[in-house]
């Protein structure tokens, strides 16, 4: 069985639904946005979420986590997607913790434990291009005296970069931009000399930063994954690929929650709003549009779930399913929310209504980790199209 939830998974999702409704409703995101909050999230509420086990859900039990997979993380993210809840689940619990778990150092273990307690936030500083291009990394890491690394470069679209206590920086040891080989992962503290983290205010209000590294010094012990560790150990690119596959699948779950919520709210409005003396949901033109969206949503739900399950199982077709899921989810989320605005009429185009927030989030999610066209191309490349 791929699609049915186990009783434990069902319980995780139910608990998340309640927590999100009480602690992280859409009004919470609005409040952060309207206050111009630089972090883009509340650390206090994150600690409360950590008590439910969210922060360490995908961290090994040895490091104080629950040792579960992206399926379970995805169930929580799906609920978060329903209220656009600002959490560092992707940045910290999945990407940051994933990078740290790949390193064997005692310091990494200590940080993982702090993450699981909800006390520490970590962001991945990876991308440099105006659109997702995982190997086009120009940030350099040069070896200096005493095994110290010196990092120089500029990063964009660092999720939760302002809130983060540490950054995991992807930098190039050998080769040039576009080469898969030669990438390594480094741990850098938020206040490190030479590091600048600037908030980038985004349309979807998700916490985001631009980062520059000007001769940032990193001790050898803080190279989490080397470019060519040898002995068959995973390289920086191997770890990066794995992190991105997991994060992409998890992001799809968040997107699924968002599109379902926007759709549900739209159907409710079609029943409630009257024009010409009847509910607008009785107009066939609108019924058919809603029914089309329903089909797309159901298809998206299936492929997203299949991708999450395949990632956890380490299935041979996991990468293909992730590409299909992100291609489909990107298109459906934007479609559903764009239609949601139209079907709401004037009120749908206002900031008073939440629908617009979902539309903005859809666009941001679409571009994160590659848009639909990127993932269709990848789906094709993986299978020789």
């Amino acid at each position, binding site marked *: 069985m791929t699609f049915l939830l186990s009783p434990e998974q069902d319980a995780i999702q139910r608990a998340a639904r309640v927590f999100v409704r009480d602690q992280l409703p859409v009004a919470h995101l609005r409040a952060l946005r309207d206050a111009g909050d630089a972090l883009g999230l509340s650390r206090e509420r994150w600690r409360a979420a950590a008590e439910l086990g969210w922060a360490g859900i995908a961290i090994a039990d040895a490091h104080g986590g629950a040792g579960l997979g992206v399926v379970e993380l995805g169930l929580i993210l799906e609920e978060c997607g329903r209220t656009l809840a600002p959490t560092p689940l992707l940045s910290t619990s999945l990407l940051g913790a994933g990078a740290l778990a790949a390193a064997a150092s005692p310091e990494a273990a200590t940080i993982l434990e702090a993450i699981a307690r909800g006390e520490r936030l970590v962001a991945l500083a990876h991308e440099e291009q105006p659109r997702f291009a995982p190997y086009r990394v120009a940030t350099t890491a040069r070896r200096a005296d005493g095994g110290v690394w010196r990092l120089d470069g500029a990063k964009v679209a660092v999720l939760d970069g302002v809130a983060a206590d540490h950054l995991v920086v992807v930098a190039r040891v050998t080769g040039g931009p576009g080469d898969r080989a030669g990438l390594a992962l480094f741990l850098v503290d938020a206040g490190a000399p030479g590091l600048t983290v600037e908030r980038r205010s985004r349309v979807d209000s998700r916490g985001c930063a631009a980062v520059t590294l000007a001769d940032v010094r990193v001790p050898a012990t803080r190279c989490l994954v080397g470019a060519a560790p040898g002995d068959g150990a995973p390289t920086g690119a191997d770890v990066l690929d794995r992190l991105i596959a997991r994060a992409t699948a998890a992001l799809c779950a968040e997107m699924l929650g968002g599109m379902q919520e926007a759709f549900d709210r739209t159907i409710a409005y079609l029943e409630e709003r009257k024009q010409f003396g009847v509910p607008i*949901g009785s107009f066939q033109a609108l019924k058919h549009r809603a*029914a089309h969206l*329903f089909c797309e949503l159901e*298809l998206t739900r299936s492929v997203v779930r299949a991708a999450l399950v395949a990632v956890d199982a380490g299935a041979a077709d996991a990468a293909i399913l992730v590409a*299909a899921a992100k291609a489909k989810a990107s298109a459906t989320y934007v479609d559903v929310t764009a239609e949601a605005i139209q079907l709401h009429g004037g009120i749908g185009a206002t900031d008073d209504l939440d629908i617009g927030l979902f539309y903005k989030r859809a666009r941001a999610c679409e571009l994160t980790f590659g848009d639909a066209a990127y993932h*269709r191309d990848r*789906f*094709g490349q993986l299978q020789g*199209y």
Partner: protein
Amino acid sequence: MSPPAPDDVDAPEALAAFRAEVRAWLEENCPPSLRTPATSAEEVWGGRRATFPSDDARRWLERCAARGYTAPTWPRGYGGAGLSAAQARVLEQEQRALGCRRPLVSFGVWMLGPVLLEFGSDAQKAEHLPPIARGEIRWCQGYSEPGAGSDLASLQTRAVRDGDDFVVDGAKVWTSFADKSDMMFCLVRTNPDAPKHAGISFLLIDMAAPGVSVRPITLISGSSPFCETRFDGVRVPARNLVGTLDGGWTIAKRLLEHERSVISLMRDAAPEDTETLAAMARRCLGVTADGRIADPILRDEVIAADVDFLCNRLTLQRSREAAQAGRGPGAESSMFKLYGTELSKRRKDLRVRLAGYQGLGWDGDGYTAAELQVTRDWLRSRASSIEGGTSEIQLNIIAKRVLGLPD
């Protein structure tokens, strides 16, 4: 001793054992010549005037029928194998893995059988189900009329009680394979004064009865799979009424649900074409130095069509799992009918465009049989979103029954 739990046969070990048994049986009994995809001319439809493309095909039908594998989930007493849904799925998977052709293609198995099991009398089940399962009697569907298509309940074909018979007068249209069938399951108006849904009955009519006439109609694809059927004073024994008098609409709707599921599941099960879309695109468009399909725009269309195909297949799988866990299909069948046929049209259309001028062939020299098939399949696919309830009707059903939108 307590009776075994009903789901025992569905326990993983039991299913694994069943799989091994089925595989061995198929290996032993499915003739090697029937382990290749069947063209439409090679399908076996059964009936009194059955034709078989080969002796192997006849033997394959007989062997499957003897084991109940033509109607796997029906009770053994009615010609089935008494399998659970999960076991039937295993059988299907194993047949697919070996590439076995379907022993029998049958409206009786897909549509009439399930509603007879639910609504028929014991006598009707005993009379009609076993010959369906053995492929001896072929059935057609008499629903649509010249004036009643999407608005099926407005049908006008009359049946009037006269002694032990009904006397039927009227006309049906688009009756698939009426000219090749032995019997028809037919919707007739038995009460012209009742509201339109409340005066319809479900009647079984012998196509050889005096007063039945059929005239074939040709599709844009060039084939003529369906007919106009006329009834002039046709006498039908009253025991051929299924369910209650004037109570046929419930049965009619249930049958349509089965029809829609079959249309969508078939698309899932059939190796839709011998050459994949990607392989065809590579062959027709060539590849670039780095191994990609040379035309980037058509390449993207092919990939998008395959992504949607994958998503649709996964959704069918999800729905099956939900059904096994006790949550029935119901109105979801409309989604699969809609999406499956619309996607199939898109894919057939894409194939013709990939083929280029070779996709324009009608007959004669200069085209391979496969190329001509691509063209005919494309044209035939246009009817798929009309037959069995149009796409617009499916959208209406989803809006009403799934989304609960007001009338």
